[in-house]
């Protein structure tokens, strides 16, 4: 029952987050904005369309979105949703598998982009790989800090009982949230790292890699992106709202937390300009430093 609820929430809810972000941004711009359900409509529209394939592309291009979405879906099966819905699959070491499933998804997208032979997409691929290589230490150090705090390497046990962690390592937890929000912004190609709404190919990071995808392929990519936003959000929300409750209470808390998370993302996107591209590594390294400090703080407390 809880596994079914987990799947339902994980598969159906994520596109709503995009809708919330866009509504918040619209409010800042003095507009009404698209319907909150717009991404669902878009996905439905794209799924009914045909796809156009360039003659220079090979099966790698077609496999890209499928592999990417599949990897993200599997990653979702390892992630508990708040305190009430444990992951359908939990085993020691799933935190590492989770990180590499996300990396696999990115790898497939990058290969598909390179397969087009377009100089734009090659440039985007190079940027994506560079920035994710810098975001990865921050993610892993954060995972390490959490694993140390809870003495576990499985998401379900790491993300349960966070209240105790806050009592023991409060400052470290705050730094971890900071690091993870930065990682989430970078990984999900949001402002200030990337501009998901720009039309300028030369400035894009993620968006330029998917320019040649259309129809169901594009639907898979957009859906996968919302899943990724949801998954990284799930970690942040559980850390930021560590309260314990009954199962329905947990689910409600989690959903509310995610909505807050989406609103915060929208506010960040509306009040910051994008970073200059050569500044992005600095911010990502700062995220790694936050996470490393959290590791240090937790180590000291654990050994004391």
């Amino acid at each position, binding site marked *: 029952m809880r596994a079914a609820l987990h799947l339902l929430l994980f598969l159906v809810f994520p596109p709503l987050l995009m809708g919330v972000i866009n509504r918040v941004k619209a409010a800042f711009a003095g507009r009404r904005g698209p319907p909150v359900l717009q991404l669902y409509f878009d996905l439905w529209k794209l799924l009914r369309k045909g796809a156009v394939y360039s003659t220079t592309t090979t099966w790698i291009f077609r496999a890209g979105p499928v592999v990417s979405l599949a990897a993200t879906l599997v990653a979702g099966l390892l992630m508990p949703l708040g305190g009430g819905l444990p992951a359908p699959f939990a085993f020691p070491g799933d935190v590492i598998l989770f990180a590499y499933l996300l990396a696999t998804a990115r790898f497939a997208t990058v290969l598909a982009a390179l397969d087009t032979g377009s100089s734009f997409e090659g440039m985007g691929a190079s940027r994506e790989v560079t920035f994710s290589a810098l975001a990865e230490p921050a993610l892993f150090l954060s995972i390490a800090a959490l694993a140390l705090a809870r003495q576990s390497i499985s998401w379900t046990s790491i993300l349960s009982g966070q209240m105790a962690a806050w009592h023991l390592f409060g400052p470290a937890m705050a730094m971890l949230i900071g690091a993870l929000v930065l990682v989430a912004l970078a990984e999900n190609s949001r402002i200030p790292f990337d501009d998901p709404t720009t039309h300028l190919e*030369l400035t894009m990071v993620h968006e330029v890699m998917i320019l040649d995808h259309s129809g169901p392929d594009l639907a898979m990519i957009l859906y996968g992106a919302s899943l990724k936003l949801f998954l990284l959000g799930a970690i942040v929300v559980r850390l930021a709202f560590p309260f314990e409750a009954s199962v329905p209470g947990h689910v409600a808390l989690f959903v509310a937390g995610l909505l807050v998370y989406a609103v915060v993302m929208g506010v960040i996107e509306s009040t910051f300009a994008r970073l*200059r591209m050569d500044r992005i590594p600095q911010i990502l390294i700062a995220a790694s430093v936050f996470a490393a400090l959290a590791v240090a703080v937790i180590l000291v407390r654990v050994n004391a």
Partner: protein
Amino acid sequence: MSAGIPKAAAECAFPNGGAVSLESVPALPLSALTAAATEARDRQKGLIALLPLVEGAASRLLLLLSDPSNGHLSASSFRLEGAKEWPSITPFWSAAHLFEREIFERTGWKPIGHPWLKAVRRHRELEADGDAPAHPFLRAEGEGVHEVAVGPIHAGIIEPGHFRLQCFGEEVLHLEIQLGYQHRAAEHLLETGTPARRLAVAESIAGDSAVGHVLAYCTALEGLAGTKVPLRAQAIRGVALELERIANHVGDLGALCNDVGFLPGAAYFGRMRGNFLNLLLEISGSRFGRSLIVPGGVRFDIPPDLQARLLGTLDRDEPQLEDMAKLVFSTPSVLSRFEGTGTIKSAAAVEFGFVGPTARACGVPRDVRSDHPSGVFQFSHIPVAVAEGGDVMARATVRWLEVLRSLRFVREQLESLPAGALRREPGAPRRSALTVALVEGWRGAIAHVVITDEQGAVARHKVIDPSFHNWFAVTLAVRRAQVSDFPLCNKSFNLSYAGHDL
């Protein structure tokens, strides 16, 4: 000065919008060209144009200069005898580089020693035949060097133009801009059409500078006919010109915000651009101020009720505009994107003869409205907005200062519109004459050069849009910059493709 030519005969001077007879333009030997160009460069005169002039069998190069130190424009010409070629002046005066290429493109005459001689515009027929490319691009080679080609079809709703970037990783080594996709033979249409048609063509040279171009066009015709435009018409023309400037600068500030992903600036400036365009709509019935300005005056009046309405709109919009500018120019993440991006050195701005906000953002105080005032600007002065730095920040600052100053000017004019007629029909144009009309459009100096034949008909109508002077500034701005900053740099100039291609 070269020896043997008395200074008085080396050029003939006239005010902006004035006409001189063709005979009074001195025809000097070709050997004097180098000296004349060197002197113009050293005295920091503006190069309005270098044009080919064909009269029967005789061929001349016509050199038109503007001298900000005394407000005069000047013309001189140089006889081409025998072989149709001349020693290029580009190697020591870069401002001439596109003009010499254009003469080569148009007539086949050759500037000997031009460092990069190829046609200005893209010509499909040239590309079709021959093995060598008609439009070779400067190429960088080496490990890690790659080429990025952008356009001519772009992702946004903008005009077509081809950009070839030579990059080393994320760093731009060189950008070459190939335009010409928008060529509509505008000059030819201005020489051959009916008067009504010509007016419409003049308004369409660059769609966002309709007022600027048609004002230059009408000023040139009025200069040839010796027409005095009524004061009220001059004031209304000034209001329209400044409203055009405000609308475009505000729109571009929004576009700059959009390019750095700063949502509030993009949304609000974008909306307010529309408000200022709507003021033009109220005056002329066209958001771009079309069909307002006609030879001899203006077609529409600003009656008292409209005057009150316009002032009321300004009262409402100005505080909003200032609030948003305050936010944009105080948001650290925006400033960090604007500052130090796309820097052009002040010396380069002088060397290449950049005009308008591009030059003023490099600390070069060139502005036709104060250097060579004509029309209402002879009576009402607008202070020149200058910024130092030559980067995107400086260009944004200059544009914002100009918005503020133009707003004040529009208010002043609306509050004290002179009484009188709207139009004085121009008489017959002077025969065998030359006139140059300069107007400070929102991108910079717009020049219309008109030469009449013995019957007083237009023999040659040359249009120089500020974009023609300024496109090379984009190349300079992105050198050694990041590829990802190219769109932002480009937007900070927002040059016209159509105005360049004509």
